[in-house]
């Protein structure tokens, strides 16, 4: 063995150079970089920390004032109409004061005018939604972006735990194929299928296009929609200046639909 110290150092240097070669060659050989597809929110989308709705019930005198709103909602979302009460599907509907606020406000000896008003009810998009906790497949979830309690119909297995969990009866189950129950269909929005639960979604598809929910648009100012956590928002302004109540607050779900009475 007559390997000199110099020879060993030379070999080491050469090996190091060889090892560093591939990355250099690769960098030189690479084509123009291919841009990866990108996914993002639409630019015109309306955003909030927690969407909320204020319903001015004083402006609803009879069922007639409610109908156009329900109609607008059910039409664009392909909500079927069944005459059979058991199969009923509802996203937005009117109910009596006593049903809407059972356990919350006095139901004895109340102002006659209030008692006969129709009260619009819908999913409350609770800050602390019990339906989300009940769902075993996470088909129902609370959107972290804007607090909407949303449903992924693809994932719903129809167990109806959410319906049992929701204290507001805001959810309906498709006991049958909804398509025969539709007079006309909105091709822009899917229908549901048999065995799936559905409910109001605060019109996420419209918010993404920068539009207000269909019922708010149809209400001609009777409903207000905005960010609950933005002090300057229209809903906060209304809540500040009017006496409002919410449904079943004692349950702690923190509903995001406020009623001016």
């Amino acid at each position, binding site marked *: 063995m007559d390997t000199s110290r110099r020879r060993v150092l030379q070999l080491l240097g050469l090996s190091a150079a060889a090892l560093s070669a591939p990355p250099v060659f690769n960098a030189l050989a690479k084509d123009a970089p*291919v*841009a*990866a*597809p*990108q*996914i*993002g*929110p*639409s*630019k015109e*989308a309306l955003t909030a920390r927690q969407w909320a709705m204020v319903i001015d019930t004083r402006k609803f005198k009879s069922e007639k004032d409610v109908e156009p709103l329900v109609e607008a909602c059910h039409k664009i979302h*392909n909500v079927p109409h069944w005459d059979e009460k058991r199969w009923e599907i509802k996203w937005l509907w009117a109910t009596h004061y006593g049903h809407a606020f059972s356990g919350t406000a006095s139901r004895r000896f109340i102002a006659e005018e209030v008692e006969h008003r129709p009260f619009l009810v819908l999913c409350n998009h609770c800050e602390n939604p019990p339906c989300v906790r009940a769902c075993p497949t996470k088909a129902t*979830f609370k*959107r972290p*972006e*804007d607090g909407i309690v*949303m449903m*992924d*119909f*693809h994932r719903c297995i129809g167990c109806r735990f959410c319906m049992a969990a929701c204290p507001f009866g805001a959810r309906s189950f498709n006991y049958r194929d909804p398509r025969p129950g539709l007079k006309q*269909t909105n*091709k*822009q*929005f*899917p*229908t*549901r*299928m048999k065995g799936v639960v559905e409910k109001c979604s605060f019109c*996420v598809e419209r918010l*993404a296009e920068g539009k207000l929910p269909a019922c708010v648009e149809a209400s001609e100012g009777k409903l207000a929609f905005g960010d609950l956590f933005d002090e300057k928002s229209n809903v906060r302004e209304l809540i500040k200046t009017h006496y409002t109540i919410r449904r079943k607050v004692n349950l702690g779900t923190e509903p995001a639909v406020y009623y001016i009475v």
Partner: protein
Amino acid sequence: MNDKKLIVTGLVIFLMIVLFPFWYNRGKAVPPPEVKLTEQAKAAKECVLSKEYMRAEHMQLLDLWRESVVREADRVYTNPKGKQFVMSLSNTCLDCHSNKADFCDKCHNYASVRPYCWDCHIENPKETK
């Protein structure tokens, strides 16, 4: 074992019946489906991604779109060429490919796959039969 003849005959008949589809269709192949494009799709020239990718992997793309739109609230897809699409089966895909019977169904039937998209998503009304 006196029934040897009987057993063998039975076996031969059994095999013939079981293998009937094979020898009956021997040498013949069902031609692959010819997908028809709508005028709108022809005019657009390229889909969201390349034709080859879409042909083989459109379900992956649809799955990604579904996940992004429903769960992440992201609705806009920008392809490598910088063109933007609203991620929607009903409104974007079916707007161009409004001929479900001649486009979607042809391949799906050939490959014997039955996607349940259409249980909820409504096929485009522009379809003419």
